[in-house]
């Protein structure tokens, strides 16, 4: 059985994880942990392996080496369905919404695993299926209120501006009521006002629902402001791991970001 981690316990840890595509080492012996209730940032220059790390955690990529321990169970790889059903939700760097569907429908798909009625009732659209649909609709309306996107409920998301799409994607991830939320560059391409909004949502999700958050972000000031601990990757290797202040003062990190040659 899986444990239910308490506040501050380690909810997920990766141990010595290596991942390569052909000859390219995307991750090279990375080890860190994530504690329940914290906002954990993963930073690093382009191509550092940040997104690969998230893909390993939610099971899109299977590392060749190392282990992942989630809720007390150690394994060599996750699977996407397993990750989703055990409370890991995520957003994508290049928004992966269902473009032809409305905001409401997109967020409803996030409730997929919360809905259990069988195909028979669904096909008839009556009895338990209809009741369940209503209940989940209500949960989704709460999320829509929370993210302040009532105005675009019925709009197909493909036509929405970028910033709003990012918000809908966050909504879809939240709809699953995840224990662990993975956000891949939630503020990429946003202006400073949109960034502020998004930061506020992330902090609210963390404090109000107690959701543990793993965050990949490029904007250093945002990362330092909102995260509890930061891990730094560079060329697939782990450069540093610590509190925002420690990371800011770390010479290796500064070098990596300023591009000083390692000789």
């Amino acid at each position, binding site marked *: 059985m899986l444990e239910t981690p308490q506040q501050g316990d380690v909810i997920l840890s990766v141990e010595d994880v290596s991942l390569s595509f052909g000859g390219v080492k995307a991750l090279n012996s990375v080890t860190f942990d994530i504690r329940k209730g914290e906002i954990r940032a993963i930073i690093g220059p382009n191509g550092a392996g940040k997104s690969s790390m998230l893909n390993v955690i*939610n099971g*899109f990529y299977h590392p060749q080496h190392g282990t992942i321990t989630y809720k007390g169970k150690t394994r060599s790889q996750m699977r*996407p*369905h397993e990750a*989703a*059903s055990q409370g890991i*939700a*995520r957003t*994508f760097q290049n928004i*992966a*919404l*269902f*473009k*032809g*569907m409305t905001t409401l*429908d997109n967020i*409803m*798909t*996030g*409730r*997929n*695993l919360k*809905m259990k*009625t069988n*195909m028979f009732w*669904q*096909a008839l*659209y009556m009895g338990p*299926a209809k009741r*369940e*649909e209503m209940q989940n609709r209500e949960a989704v309306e709460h999320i829509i209120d929370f993210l302040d996107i009532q105005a675009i409920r019925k709009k197909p998301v493909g036509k929405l501006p970028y910033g709003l799409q990012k918000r809908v994607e966050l909504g*879809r*991830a939240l709809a*699953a009521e995840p224990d662990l939320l993975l956000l891949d560059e939630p503020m990429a391409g946003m202006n400073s006002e949109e960034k502020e909004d998004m930061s506020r949502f992330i902090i609210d999700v963390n404090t109000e629902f107690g959701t543990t958050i793993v965050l990949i972000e490029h904007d250093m000031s945002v990362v330092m402001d909102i995260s509890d601990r930061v891990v730094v990757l560079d060329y697939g290797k782990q450069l540093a791991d610590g509190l925002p202040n420690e990371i800011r003062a770390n010479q290796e990190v500064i070098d990596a970001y300023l591009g000083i040659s390692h000789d």
Partner: protein
Amino acid sequence: MSPDILNTIEVILNGLMTGVMYSLVALGFVLIFKASGIFNYAQGVFCLFAALTLVGFQTGQIPFAHVINVVFGSNIHHWGEGLHTVLAIILTIAVMIGLAWLVERYLLRHMVNQAPIILFMATIGLAYFMEGLGDLMWGANIKTLNVGLPSGASFWWEDVTREWAEPGTRYLGMYIDVLDVWAAGIALALVVALTIFSQYTKTGRALRAVADDHQAALSVGISLRGIWVIVWSIAGIVALVAGIMWGSKSGVQFSLSLIALKALPVLILGGFTSIPGAIIGGLVIGVGEKLFEFSIGPLVGGATENWFAYVLALLFLMFRPQGLFGDKIIERV
């Protein structure tokens, strides 16, 4: 009204009925193409196989009787009494769902992430396999299918329309086959049911989600394999309905699987990814080919129905390759 106008109306009506039948076949293609990006060449054979199985159950045939007889030297062919039509239909649906499961388990699962052309080749293989399996199970002879739908000309409609003609003209009334009307009605009901299912249920939403973005669908815990089984099952059921309609009209025989070819121009017109497109594409082709045959046909010696649809498709490929309703093709350079 003059008899000329009435004749034209009759042609259009009959075109619409045929068109609905084309749409029904095209619908099976669109469902699978949207959800898994596979052009299922075997869809036509699915129609044939479903119809064969239905007739087999209805008449109480023993599956693989021929093989059993050859191997064991026995002489069996029927159970005796056939099954009631409703029961036979339910059993056939069960067979089509089982088939969908087998296709996912033994074909698609090994083909994930392959290029579309490879998947297409696999469905060609599937088509020939199914054709052989159908023959082996139920025999290759031509069978009649009767599920109790009324057929033949509607005399009521003939009487009504005869009154519309101007007095003094010798107009005999419009011919319309009752079976065609039933087929159109059932096809419409099926499309409405599918639309409601995909709009308002969890599984329907999951179907649309998978059609839109595989990876995002995985991230919210939708099982791709489960969805594929469901989609192929639905396509199997649509094939059964199409098989019943075409089979009742022209008998259950090998040529039934060739109606899939007529679905191709329908898909090119309607777009491979659009359900309304498949329906309207079918209607346009149905009406178009009947009207063309009626007006231009006599000038060129007739039989234009054999090629009209394909020429229309060719024109579409030249001027609007995404079809009437398909997703616009935007290539990033």
